[in-house]
């Protein structure tokens, strides 16, 4: 299931949905949250812009790639858009699988690709009410290497 939405999501509801199938032995979840300090600035709000249409299709393509590489029973990706506050949930990726190795790898793979391939852009507002676009992190680009070396 892939959702791009401005509303918040309930991590418990998503977790419970992923553990329903009796063959599931492992559930790994990732949640990304709005931090107080980013790239040295005190963050007050975060606004997420996206490319409607492409956002959904790029996430679907990333999930399809993960499903072709690992044995996944169920997968959920939720990404929020619009204005978020400190401590808010930004993104959720949850994987249900037979064994933990598949769940860990697929969850991290989806996050690494989402961070570099899905068309979302973050604009932060700091404590002085200045707004600026967040810079891409080189470490996110480097994180892809572990999936292509294999």
């Amino acid at each position, binding site marked *: 299931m892939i959702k791009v939405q401005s509303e918040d999501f309930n991590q418990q509801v998503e977790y419970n949905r992923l553990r329903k199938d009796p063959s599931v032995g492992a559930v790994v979840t990732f949640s990304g949250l709005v931090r107080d300090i980013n790239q040295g600035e005190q963050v007050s709000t975060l606004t997420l812009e996206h*490319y409607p249409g492409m956002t959904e*299709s*790029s996430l679907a393509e990333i999930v399809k790639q993960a499903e072709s590489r690992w044995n996944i029973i169920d997968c959920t990706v939720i990404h929020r858009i619009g204005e978020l506050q400190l401590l808010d949930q930004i*993104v959720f990726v949850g994987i249900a699988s037979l064994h933990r190795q598949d769940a860990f790898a697929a969850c991290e793979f989806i*996050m690494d690709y989402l961070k570099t391939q*899905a068309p979302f*852009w973050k604009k932060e507002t700091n404590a002085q009410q200045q707004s600026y676009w967040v810079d*891409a992190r080189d470490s996110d680009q480097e994180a892809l290497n572990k999936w292509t070396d294999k």
Partner: protein
Amino acid sequence: MIKVLFFAQIRDQLATSELQMASDENSSVQALLSNLKARDDKWNRVLSNTRLMVAVNQTICNDNVDLHSGDEVAFFPPVTGG
């Protein structure tokens, strides 16, 4: 016609979110980019960013992709979601 979209910093810097270009003079992403850069110094500078990303019909690609009438081309900075 080709629909051209700009996102995030690129849109802010160009003060443009969308425009239409004739498809016959813009038969590849490279040709389209050259025509856009030729508009003025600002467009030339903004679209010369080496980290500029491009998507054709909502799929990330490089700039030697061919374009056809009805295609949607988007230019944007490196993505920062998640």
